[in-house]
């Protein structure tokens, strides 16, 4: 008697559940759609500039192409392709320092970009200073490599998908047809929540490293690094155009910097350009 009762009940329940979930998914997609395509289209003038600059570059007229790209940049628009293209123009114009600066900026927006990494490596061949980087904990490198496989925005979209999946699995856990299904649903939902949180952390760390702006490129052909933030300090070492430094603090028009090999010193702020 009770089995008849239960089977009738659960049949009913499943039908209701399934229909509601379908509705929920469609609803979620409808709501998310504008966010997935959330980057607003650039104004026609800017996209014209983009097209013509690309054409100029293909004809080998790098300086004019650069001027047009810079105009786009001045209008307040930014994107990883724009920064990458500007860097390419600088490279072709043999302005290695600027080229490295823009490749680094493009990398900040999308650290996983293969093209940018490749070109940055080539541009760095022209930088005079060769700095031995301190070895890093291997796990850190691995995590960073995984993190930099996709850009911040891509991680964010994927994390949202995982959160939605977590919600669905939780619903299944609550109203699942059998206890086995419910059990599996619970663990799956916890796992998906964990993945979502990790991906969110990836997205967050990329964004925060972009916003931190604590690295800079030396733009002067020769720049003296001193032991104190004034012109009278002892000369510690000399940096050349294109070298990447980390900025620690600022005092007046002097910046305290640290090289990748751990050496520190003070450099005139005007010699640097922040990435």
């Amino acid at each position, binding site marked *: 008697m009770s089995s008849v009762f239960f089977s009738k009940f659960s049949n009913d329940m499943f039908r209701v559940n399934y229909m509601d979930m379908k509705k929920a998914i469609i609803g979620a997609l409808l709501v998310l759609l504008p966010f997935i395509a959330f980057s607003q289209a650039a104004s026609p003038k800017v996209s014209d500039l983009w097209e013509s600059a690309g054409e100029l570059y293909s004809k080998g007229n790098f300086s004019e192409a650069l001027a047009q790209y810079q105009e786009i940049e001045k209008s307040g*628009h930014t994107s990883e*392709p724009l920064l990458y293209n500007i860097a390419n123009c600088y490279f072709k114009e043999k302005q290695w320092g600027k080229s490295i600066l823009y490749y680094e900026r493009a990398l900040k927006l999308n650290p996983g970009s293969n093209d940018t990494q490749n070109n940055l490596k080539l541009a760095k061949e022209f930088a005079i200073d060769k700095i031995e980087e301190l070895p890093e904990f291997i796990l850190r490198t691995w995590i960073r490599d995984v993190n930099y496989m996709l850009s911040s925005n891509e991680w964010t979209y994927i994390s949202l998908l995982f959160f939605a999946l977590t919600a669905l699995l939780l619903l299944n856990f609550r109203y699942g047809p059998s206890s086995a299904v419910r059990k599996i649903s619970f663990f799956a939902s916890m796992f998906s929540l964990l993945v979502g949180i990790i991906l969110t952390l990836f997205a967050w760390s990329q964004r925060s490293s972009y916003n931190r702006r604590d690295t800079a490129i030396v733009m002067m052909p020769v720049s003296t690094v001193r032991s104190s933030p004034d012109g009278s300090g002892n000369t510690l070492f000399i940096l050349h155009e294109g070298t990447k430094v980390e900025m620690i603090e600022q005092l007046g028009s002097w910046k305290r910097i640290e090289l990748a090999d751990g050496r520190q010193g003070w450099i005139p702020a005007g010699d640097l350009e922040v990435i």
Partner: protein
Amino acid sequence: MINYLDKIKNSGVTRRLFLILGSFIAGVSLSAQTSLKVDAPRVVESGESFQVVFSVNAEPSSFNLPSITDFDLLAGPSQSRMSSTQIINGKRSESISISYTYVLAPRSEGKFTIPSATVVVDGKSYSSSPVTIEVVKGDGSAKSSESAQTATTVSSDDLFLKISLSKGRVVKGEHLIATVKLYTKVPIAGFEDVRFPSFNGFWSQEIDTPQNIEFVRESIDGKIYNSALLRRYMLLPQQSGTLTIDAAEMICQVQIRSAGGASRSLFDDFFDSYSTVRKRVSSTAVRVVVDPLPQGAPASFQGGVGEFTMNAKLSRDSINANEALSLIVNISGTGNINLIEAPKIAFPAGFEVYDTKISDNSSKGSRGATGSKQFEYPIIPRGPGEYTIPKVEFSFYDIAKKRYITLFSDDLNLKVGRDAGGGSVSQPGLSLGVNRQAVRSITEDIRYIHSGASRLKKGNLFFFASLFYFFAILMIISLYIFTEKILSKRVERNRDIAGVKNRRANKVARARLKNAETLLKQGIYMGFYEELHRALLGYVSDKLNLSLADLSRDKIREELVFKKVDFGQIEELLYLLEQCEYARYAPDPGGGEMDKNYTKAISLISEMEL
């Protein structure tokens, strides 16, 4: 030697030198070839008397002397004869020289020619070449040469070195000839400490290095000097700009008459009247303007300047793999041919190329280097096939046309057959199959710009932590809560419906069996079963929508099975109906039989109702 002696003998100024040396070396050797020579100064001063000597080194049968019309014949022709006999290691040789000497004086200034003389020796006739003599005005030094020799000092006017260049302005790589000459009016006994210029900025080569110093009369600014060629160089400028050739230097031993008193005897005069003075002479530095080669040199230009032709050929047209052949490029012409480098040839991949063998067959002269240069490229093709060696390209700068010229050879085709030896391949592991190679990067360049979607955006570039992001998170949470609410409500309601149905089914059953219940309480056995039977049949007829008349056991079973009522319930119902029918004719068995059947009927109806 003869030539040298004759030159000195006729130089006039160095006659003393001849007197000293002549007695020792006269007739030491004579050439066996019969020849007729004429000796005359090239330059004379007007009023000066000079000698013209025709000499033949054999006994002539007849001698035809030219008629000299442009000069005054002062004396001659006087014949002199010289013969010598030599015995060296028992070998005897004789030589003879017969000379006819004219003493002439010029009539006027200008250039005059002494026609050729003819001599017949052993029936064969020989003739001398005509000689041109220039008569200059002169300062009388030649005439009073004796007095010049008496000077006790030597001025720089009397003795100097000079470097003369064939061209003062050249392009880089164009040849020029530098001649170092000594000019003197005084007798010279010898040289010391000769220093020639180092020719910085030039590639230099001596093209004329006389073994003997020969003095020739030459007029410079109307003055007559005895000049001697010391060195001649071919120079190839290696850099552009104004290049300076530094001075040549030497120390001359000049013979001057010692300033003796009047008491000198004849013997003094003969033996001791001359002393040797060392005099340092140097030339002035000379400048050469070297123009750079014009812009726009072809890629294959390697510094060749002049005029050249080129041909290239393979030593064989067909060959087996792993056999050697060579590509021979021959460049010939005039110019700095000795500095030409091997043309660069892009051999096809799979050719092993060895060091180029260069052979230079050029000779240097006053026209620069002339001749040919051969480049031999030894090659070994490693794989069979038909190969085309690209055109050999050679560029040079043509001085006359003032432009670059590029020469091309024909395409060189080579058929390479299979390796005949079969196994002398350099890679022992790869005797079969193709020679695999890694893809080599020619140059590295940055990757091309992104030309697709610009993805340009203003303001915040990150979706993460943007307003939309939080909105999306909120959306997910609220959708979850919303769905959860709906679902839980549904479940709740479903649970209610079951309860209501249950209650209603009980109610129906109780209503149907209401009469039966009262009869049960009154204990009326027959009435109870009658009522129960009627109620059950009524219920079934209502449930199945059939009239009471149509109801039979089989019909009820059939319809209920069709309605998917539980099999046990059907059997129970039918059993109950049967019990009711039996009870009408059978006495009451007593006990709780009536109660039992009543509750059974109620539960049956309730369950079937759901």
